[in-house]
């Protein structure tokens, strides 16, 4: 039993300092297995100043991963305490805290970022294709369709999108050509055409075309989660128009995209119903979420995620209605593929949508 106890104590050298002094008389008996542990033990003994391990010893020489990890954590803690003590001792004269480098920090300033007071951009936006919507002259009416012969997941996705976007109508594609669909849509007063493309039974692309003569955006859709797959979700969305939140659409291209998304929803500042649709742009990916919120008090809000969630990545923005062959592209995603010796990796160029 004694032996067992000893082994236990040896296996956890850093756990309790009180146990260490017991260990002292024992080591000579366990030279075979525990020569390593002996070396570590004396470190934790406060009283004797003499260390029995060689001065060039470092934590990395311990072969046992668990013990090495524990030793390292200990070392780090001590270092941190020491640093904090020094900082407190200096008081006001302490050097400022260093900010850690993140991708967002290290980003080169994008010269296309729009200055809010820019008159030219303001004029441009005042007279572009969305000006009719932003001047409250038209109400959005969206036609949602898919590529030919959609499978279950895409159909369900379209139906859920139709509940999220007010005044949206889902139609089956039935092999019709988009160029012929567009004049019919315009005749029936639609303002948007949304085509969800499907590949291998999963939606993977979206073409969003602003009608009369608006720009056409082509997106790559990924990470589609339908309502059934959401955890802790609320009840189905109601008929109320949701609020729209657009995050990080700061550059000139971002502005165009933001306006494109905003014009999908009715323009009504008096919010009824506590639903909100968020388009969050981060590193050129646009994340769509749909929530219901409730204010518990002045400071705290509770949110419940409803509705589908998906991410979009812009592939091209084309002036005019859908015309992929002869249309003029305002922005095209150009992917640069870097070849390394053993690994092929695909890295995309920095483009103007991100902050």
């Amino acid at each position, binding site marked *: 039993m004694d032996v067992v106890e000893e082994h236990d104590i040896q296996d956890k050298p850093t756990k309790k300092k009180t146990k260490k002094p017991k260990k002292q008389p024992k080591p000579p008996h366990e030279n075979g297995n525990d020569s390593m542990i002996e070396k570590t033990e004396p470190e934790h003994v406060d009283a004797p100043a003499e260390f029995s391990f060689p001065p060039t010893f470092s934590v990395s020489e311990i072969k046992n991963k668990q013990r090495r990890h524990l030793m390292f954590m200990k070392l780090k803690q001590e270092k941190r305490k020491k640093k904090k003590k020094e900082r407190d001792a200096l008081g006001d004269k302490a050097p400022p805290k260093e900010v850690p480098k993140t991708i967002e920090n290290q980003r080169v300033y994008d010269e296309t970022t729009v200055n809010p007071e820019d008159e*030219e951009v303001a004029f*441009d936006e005042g007279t572009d294709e969305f000006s009719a919507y932003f001047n409250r002259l038209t109400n959005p009416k969206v036609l949602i369709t898919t590529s030919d012969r959609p499978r279950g997941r895409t159909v369900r996705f379209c139906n859920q999108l139709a509940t999220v976007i007010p005044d949206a109508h889902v139609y089956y594609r039935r092999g019709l050509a988009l160029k012929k669909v567009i004049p019919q849509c315009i005749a029936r007063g639609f303002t948007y055409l949304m085509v969800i493309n499907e590949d291998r039974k999963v939606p993977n692309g979206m073409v969003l075309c602003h009608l009369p003569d608006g720009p056409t955006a082509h997106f790559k859709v990924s990470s589609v989660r339908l309502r059934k797959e959401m955890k802790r979700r609320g009840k189905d969305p109601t008929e109320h128009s949701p609020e729209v939140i657009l995050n990080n659409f700061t550059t000139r291209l971002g502005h165009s995209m933001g306006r494109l998304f905003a014009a999908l929803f009715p323009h009504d500042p008096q919010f009824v119903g506590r639903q909100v649709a968020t388009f969050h742009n981060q590193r050129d990916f646009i994340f769509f979420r749909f929530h219901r919120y409730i204010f518990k008090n002045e400071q705290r809000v509770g949110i419940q995620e409803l509705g589908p969630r998906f991410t979009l990545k812009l592939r091209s923005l084309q*002036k005019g209605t859908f015309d992929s062959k002869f*249309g*003029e*592209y*305002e922005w095209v995603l*150009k992917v640069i593929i870097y070849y390394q010796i053993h690994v092929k990796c695909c890295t995309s160029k920095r*483009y*103007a949508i991100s902050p």
Partner: protein
Amino acid sequence: MADKSQVCSVWVGSETGILKGVSLSKKQAFNFCEMSCLSRDQEVCVLGWGDEHETEVLVGSVNGTVKTFSTEKGIFTETRQCGESTQGRFTGIAVTDSALITCVETGLLRVWKEGSTDTVEINAGTNVCRMRQNPSQRNQVATGGKENGLKVWDLERPETPIFTSKNVRNDWLDLRVPEWVRDMSFIPDSDKIVTCTGHHQVRVYDPASPQRRPVLEAHFGEYPLTALSLPANQDSVVVGNTHGELAILDLRKGLVRGCLKGLAGGVRGLQCHPSLPLVATCGLDRFLRVHSLEDRSLQHKVHTNTLSFSYTLSTPEAITGDVEEVKEEGGEVDEVWDTMEMINDQAKKRATDEEEAVVTGVEKTTKKRKVVK
């Protein structure tokens, strides 16, 4: 205003009607617009030099007005009404001997003589996409458009064109090949005209030869080519398409020499520098870029806030200074000589690298052979 306009080396017209002068040394774009009356009506369709010394810029807008902007004074000096907006957008503007030549989309080519109100009118067919003037023979203009082949007109004989091109033969399915001339350019020191089409073809026509069909045809990419320009050295052409792909094509064999990277949007305007191997491009991605033709690298990139819908024009003197970013005047001359030497060396290198000394039988000019060797 005057000092700003004198510094600008490249002029760009925008969708909102603002004429922008871009100074490459300062990497900045300056706006020149009249009385801040911006409207989509004033959208700039064409830009042209008003005179030989490149001190006046002619700006043609959608509503049919042609404004003259003086680069020395920095203000718009004159406005003329040359047609209405119902007649279509301007597709070309040129100046000969104090007469202004304008062409619109509906095919109406007019010569406006100064002082008199009557105009010489030529009907160049429908759907004209571009009109260009021959820089060596100023009374010759070329027009072309959608289903409207290349026609070269002499303004002194306005009834019939002096050269009408013929469409290529039916393709392998015996179907008529559609025609869509988007841009053209006269090759200096010869009669030839090179055109780029909306069906991604580059064609060379030779009025001196008996055949009216293209002498050379080359393909590039899968998207409509929107702009074309001839660089200073002969036998190559720079083209741009709606996807922002710029390529340098060789006119001896019709092969792609190289692509210029960087553009993200469709190319609207393309202009090569008359003497230096530089090309300036403006497009729908709101940037003005200057590339070097030798190493195909990007030299300058300036953000212009609005969509650039029309041509860039460059002044030769200013650009030589800008390329080297010289501050002292004495240094400028040396730098200019340095750049000239570099060009010659590179041309020699290219001649040794390219083993294709094969000259197509059709091109009989000896001048081109000298350049190669």
